């Protein structure tokens, strides 16, 4: 973990609710950034005290740029939208335990802004010679990031209300697949999506990983604030999303 200053290079709206933030970071740190890891950004705005966590949605080793897809939800994400190219931003990074990139066929299941870390993961899997399919479910047009579908061939989009892609939920997409034709499955999305997917994936024999969210004060394991219940070795434990995760074995997580 380092506390360093990044330089904002681009900050553009992608939809009414989502924007894309690109930040130039020092070269040395780039190799440490892996899919599923995240940064805590310091937002200098009225009423924002804590940093805010955002997953890396992409890293470009050549340009030294990291990309975030950010959904507008409150004062922090609201203020961050106003940051201009050329401004500096303090970032703690890289944080957390990322996805386990595996060979073979991977199914990536994203709900809403959950696509952010999976975009990065998909690129990484492809880079390492793996195969991917993506199910990308959104609520509506405002939550849909068009450039994602340009990045990947095997991607199916579902929209809760008529909008981009097919009408339906992520779960509909999952049901339409022969999940056993995949070697592993990765998920990121809202709790309702994860809860719905859970019984459906219970018997899947391969690795299933999920990237979780939780409210964080520090992001690096010091406050013990961000815990989730995990059932492993026949014991219920609280694990830190920021340090033991955000990527967990999906089957062990108590949602």
């Amino acid at each position, binding site marked *: *973990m*380092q*506390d360093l200053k990044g330089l904002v290079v681009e900050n553009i709206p992608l939809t009414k609710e989502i924007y894309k933030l690109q930040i130039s970071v020092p070269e040395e740190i780039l190799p440490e950034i892996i899919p599923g890891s995240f940064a805590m950004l*310091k937002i200098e705005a009225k*009423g*924002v*005290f*804590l*940093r805010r966590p955002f997953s890396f949605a992409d890293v470009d080793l050549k340009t030294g740029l990291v990309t975030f897809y950010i959904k507008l939800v409150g004062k922090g994400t609201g203020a961050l939208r106003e940051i201009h190219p050329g401004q500096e931003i*303090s970032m*703690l990074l890289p944080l957390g335990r990322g996805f386990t990139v595996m060979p073979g066929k991977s199914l990536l299941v994203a709900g809403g802004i959950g696509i952010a870390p999976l975009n990065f993961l998909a690129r990484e899997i492809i880079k390492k010679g793996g195969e991917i399919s993506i199910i990308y479910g959104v609520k509506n047009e405002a939550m849909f990031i068009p450039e994602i579908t340009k990045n990947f061939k095997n991607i199916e989009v579902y929209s809760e209300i008529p909008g981009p892609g097919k009408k339906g939920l992520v779960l509909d997409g999952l049901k339409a697949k022969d999940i056993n034709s995949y070697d592993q499955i990765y998920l990121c999305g809202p709790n309702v999506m994860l809860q719905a997917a859970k019984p459906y994936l219970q018997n899947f024999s391969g690795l299933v990983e999920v990237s979780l969210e*939780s*409210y*964080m*004060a*520090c*992001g*690096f*394991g*010091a*406050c*013990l*604030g*961000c*815990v*989730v219940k995990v059932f492993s070795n026949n014991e219920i*434990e*609280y694990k830190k999303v920021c*340090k033991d995760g955000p990527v967990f074995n999906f089957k062990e997580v108590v949602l």
Partner: protein
Amino acid sequence: MNLEVKIDELTLKNPVMPASGTFGFGLEFKDIFDLKNLGALVVKTITKNPRLGNRPPRVYEVSCGMINSIGLANPGWDYFREKILPQIKDLNDILILNIAGESVEEFEYLAREAQRFDEIKALELNVSCPNVSKGGIAFGTDLEALKQIVSSVRKIYSKTLIVKLTPNVTDITVYAKAAENAGADALTLINTFSGMVIDVKSKKPVLGNKHGGVSGPAIRPMAVKMVYDCFKAVSIPLIGVGGIDSKEAALEFFLAGATAIQVGSQNFVEPGFMPRLIRELGEYLREENIEGIAKLTGLAHRREENV
């Protein structure tokens, strides 16, 4: 220019240390700075038995601060002694163990254990956590219980004994005096303010445990006043804590009467804050031509008389 301060028999190379529970066991900060720079290392509260802590959510932002209901989650004394103490004992010369108990006996048990370990230089009694149902704040607001805990531990523990008080009382000087009389060598002022945030969407308290403790700059004026009041009431050294996020904020505490200070929530926002603060305090002394930080302690009281 001299940053050294004395707390009872201990000489701290500077007056800056982490507030318990905001620095883990220090290990998370090792990437960011060398913990030897700190005046002392104060660990997260340890209890006799392991504690899972409260159900999440456990932290949330509030105006100029945060609220937490961690609930003293910790691996318990045995695990701490076996697995953690060996890892951290060389991180800083002055290791302060913060402990809490659900009963006087648990405090006594932990004090007896701590007494055996040379690497533990002082005890900080947490009689003020608002997030546990048994013990916790109840001890800190019940004057008789406070006296009993402090004097019982005092009988067992011969090294430096620090008592950390809760601000959730009518008159903190009463508790400060009681702790002093019961044998405390120093006081840490203050723990968090009891508070609650309600989520307007779900119409429920945000925290899993409903209420929690408020920390951060929001509580600083109250903390400064308590240090100021206690400085007049007791003669043992005070360790000021509550919303320190800048050199100026730290100086307020010294001027009010603190001998040393602790940094809490700001560690989350800026993990390198403490070494920066130590550097800035040194620069401040140089610029202002003040011979030692100890000269600042309580200065706001002396100045008053000349008004």
